[in-house]
């Protein structure tokens, strides 16, 4: 019940924040389009008047935008103020080839903007972007600032270099242009914040579990102790309540996969809950990550599917032929929909959790008018702190629940694929 109230409350706040942001964008649109009429880089007509730096300090505080910046994947780990932990950039542009360098080379300052351009790459909002224009100088050059323009519905970021505006490409994405991305002039294979967090989770979990596994040999015949007694109940619970009931006697073959899924998601969810370095990465709230996990679940399920499983999908026994013509397409769609729901559920839950917490923290700045009103800030703090605290507790629960749900559903899909239908065969 409480969760429902909180969800509704956060939903209201979220809608409020998003609509507020839309308002800003609209007002921004109008002014920018005024300024930029007649200025198009492609026409080679650069005049200083058309290019203007986007001054973040003049912006009104926008919780929605702040939230979106916090949940996105970036190429440098923000510590505090202007201090960033550099991450390796591995970039590939088909026309230029590979570029490798540390993101510190961009000389980051406020809001994740870089002072330097390297081989036509710049950093804006912590994200590497690429200058579309091939005439932009290669190597290391200093850039002035960043701005943006609009082409139709799309906001295009610009870099201002020597008084000229250059449109920027974002990295390629696989959404086919439907979600504002698409294949652009380069690919980003960098160790981003998310990749870094995944590697961290990998090492942390591996060393933790290695210790646990070793404890079973060094302390053989003794009661579990320390970290071993933390992991063991979770492990046994997942095995006895998830793997064995769904997979039956063949559960041991799939146990490592299910455990990997569970602990990988759980580890990433929990690291994401830490609000500062090395946490805060919204890894399981990124569609690419959940897509990979769902694809693993899809392949493990369908590669272990037996004859009965495929028979039930393509030619359901015991139903009239005309029903089969309806049932088969539904079942085939189900093959895709199952991992799709896995992917979206995890993504939506974790992203929503991150957004809600950031929105709650943002209340301080909303009430305080971005630091102008101390009284407002204090009031906002009194509202925001308990709400955030409560939300973080809920998110802690969600971290476990989502890992568990992903795992139990994967187990049920695999279980359906490997189940023996002897008992049913007897009925027909």
């Amino acid at each position: 019940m409480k969760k429902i109230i909180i969800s509704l409350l956060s939903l209201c706040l979220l809608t409020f924040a998003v609509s507020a942001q839309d308002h800003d964008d609209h007002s921004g649109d109008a002014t920018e389009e005024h300024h930029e009429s007649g200025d198009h880089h492609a026409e080679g007509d650069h005049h200083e008047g058309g290019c203007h730096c986007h001054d973040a300090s003049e912006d009104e505080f926008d919780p929605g935008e702040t939230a979106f910046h916090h949940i996105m994947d970036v190429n440098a780990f923000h510590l505090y103020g202007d201090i960033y932990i550099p991450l390796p950039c591995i970039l590939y542009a088909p026309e230029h080839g590979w570029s490798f360098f540390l993101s510190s080379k961009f000389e980051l300052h406020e809001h994740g903007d870089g002072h330097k351009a390297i081989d036509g790459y710049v950093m804006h909002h912590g994200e590497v972007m690429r200058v579309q224009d091939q005439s932009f100088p290669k190597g290391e050059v200093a850039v002035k600032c960043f701005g943006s323009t609009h082409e139709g519905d799309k906001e295009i970021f610009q870099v201002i270099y020597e008084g000229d505006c250059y449109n920027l490409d974002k990295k390629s994405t696989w959404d086919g242009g439907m979600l504002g991305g698409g294949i652009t002039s380069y690919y980003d294979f960098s160790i981003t914040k998310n990749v870094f967090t995944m590697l961290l989770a990998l090492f942390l979990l591996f060393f933790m579990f290695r210790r646990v596994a070793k404890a079973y040999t060094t302390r053989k015949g003794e009661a579990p102790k320390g970290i071993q007694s933390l992991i063991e109940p979770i492990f046994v619970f997942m095995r006895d309540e998830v793997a064995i009931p769904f997979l039956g006697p063949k559960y041991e073959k799939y146990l490592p996969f299910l455990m990997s899924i569970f602990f990988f998601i759980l580890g990433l969810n929990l690291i994401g809950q830490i609000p500062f370095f090395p946490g805060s990465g919204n890894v399981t709230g990124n569609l690419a990550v959940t897509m990979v996990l769902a694809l693993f679940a899809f392949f493990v399920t369908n590669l272990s599917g037996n004859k009965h499983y495929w028979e039930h999908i393509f030619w359901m026994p015991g139903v009239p032929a005309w029903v089969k013509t309806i049932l088969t397409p539904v079942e085939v769609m189900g093959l895709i929909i199952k991992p799709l729901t896995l992917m979206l559920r995890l993504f939506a839950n974790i992203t929503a959790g991150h957004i809600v917490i950031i929105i709650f923290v943002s209340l301080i700045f909303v009430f305080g008018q971005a630091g102008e009103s101390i009284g407002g800030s204090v009031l906002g703090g009194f509202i925001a702190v308990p709400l955030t605290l409560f939300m973080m507790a809920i998110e802690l629960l969600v971290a476990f629940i989502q890992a568990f749900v992903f795992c139990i559903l994967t187990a049920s899909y695999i279980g359906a694929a490997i189940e023996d239908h002897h008992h049913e065969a007897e009925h027909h």
Partner: protein
Amino acid sequence: MTDLLFLADFSVIRPEPGLFVWTVLIFSVFWWLMAKYAFKPIQQALKAREDDIQNSLDEAKRAREEMANLNAENEKLLAQASEERAKILKEAKEAKQAIIAEAKEKAKEEAKKIVANAKNDIENLRMAAVTDLKNQVGNISIEIAEKILREQLKGDAAKEGYVKSLVDEIKLN
């Protein structure tokens, strides 16, 4: 329109190839590493321990059953033993009586035998005594006869000589 603008900022929904590739790589490594060095050994150890516990429980149950069996057997043995004892006692009693009866019989027979022997002896002795008596009587009669004869023959040397020769003749015999 506004929806698209909203999504334009919402970058996490756009799957990036770079992150995709890294996730595939990292999760594959994670899966392999954890399966080999953590999950399989832990599962083995847990299974071994559970088997161990189950075995111990089974063992204890078996021991308890054995104990109960043993107790029952003991009681049975005890009952058997007491029965045996009663039987033995009864047999012993019977044996005793039989022995006593036999002994009595034997004693009776012995007594009879002794009595018979005694009778025999007495008879023999009597016979001996009678014989002895007869002999004595004979001797006495002879002595008397001798004395009588001697008296009668006194003074009659011739007769005496004759008797002497007769006696000598007898002695020679």
